[in-house]
């Protein structure tokens, strides 16, 4: 069964910390995405990558960066965590076509 795995289900970090959210897919997909989900706002695209070492900004990239050194792994980095980055973070991947496969999400709380 194909999978997108996010390394942590829950994280609590302090303001100002550097935070790494990891995502791994086992489907050999070229495209990977990071979204955040907030009540009333749905899923908003932070960054996506269509190939190794390639990245594109989504709608809300401020305060985030990404890394894709290997095809199967796409990391989201919060350079200096702030309380307004408390959210559910969802990673997704896709091959061709329109279907995205999502991970289970990481609920990040910044205190």
């Amino acid at each position, binding site marked *: 069964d194909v999978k997108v795995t996010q390394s942590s289900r829950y994280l609590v970090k302090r303001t100002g910390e550097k935070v790494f959210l990891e995502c791994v897919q086992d489907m050999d997909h070229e495209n990977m995405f990071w979204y955040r989900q907030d009540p009333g706002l*749905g*899923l908003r*695209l932070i960054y996506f990558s269509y190939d190794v070492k390639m990245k594109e900004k989504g709608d809300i990239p401020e305060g985030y960066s990404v890394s894709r050194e290997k095809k199967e792994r796409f990391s989201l980095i919060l350079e200096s965590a702030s309380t307004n980055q408390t959210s559910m973070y969802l990673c997704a991947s896709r091959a061709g076509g329109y279907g*995205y496969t999502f991970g289970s*999400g990481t609920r990040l709380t910044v205190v």
Partner: protein
Amino acid sequence: DQQVKQNSPSLSVQEGRISILNCDYTNSMFDYFLWYKKYPAEGPTFLISISSIKDKNEDGRFTVFLNKSAKHLSLHIVPSQPGDSAVYFCAASGSNNNDMRFGAGTRLTVKP
């Protein structure tokens, strides 16, 4: 600026009845539309889709209708079952497909 809007945050229906979830979009360049279902503590899972060349797509109890002139789509679930209780997200994409945008979601509760 949200390009995909779901104006009803919640919907409650009785088991066996029809559930109708609505979605509006503003970007006329979207040409593919999808519905995702999300249970708590899980990622969204793909449910059904429709391309802009069609106005209806059916898959078992789920039917999606697209009205391009009104920039509106809807998801019908007939008959509704308690296991359908979840948050439903409407999504839309252009031909690029790296620009998929999601609505805010509608929480459906199906009462036994």
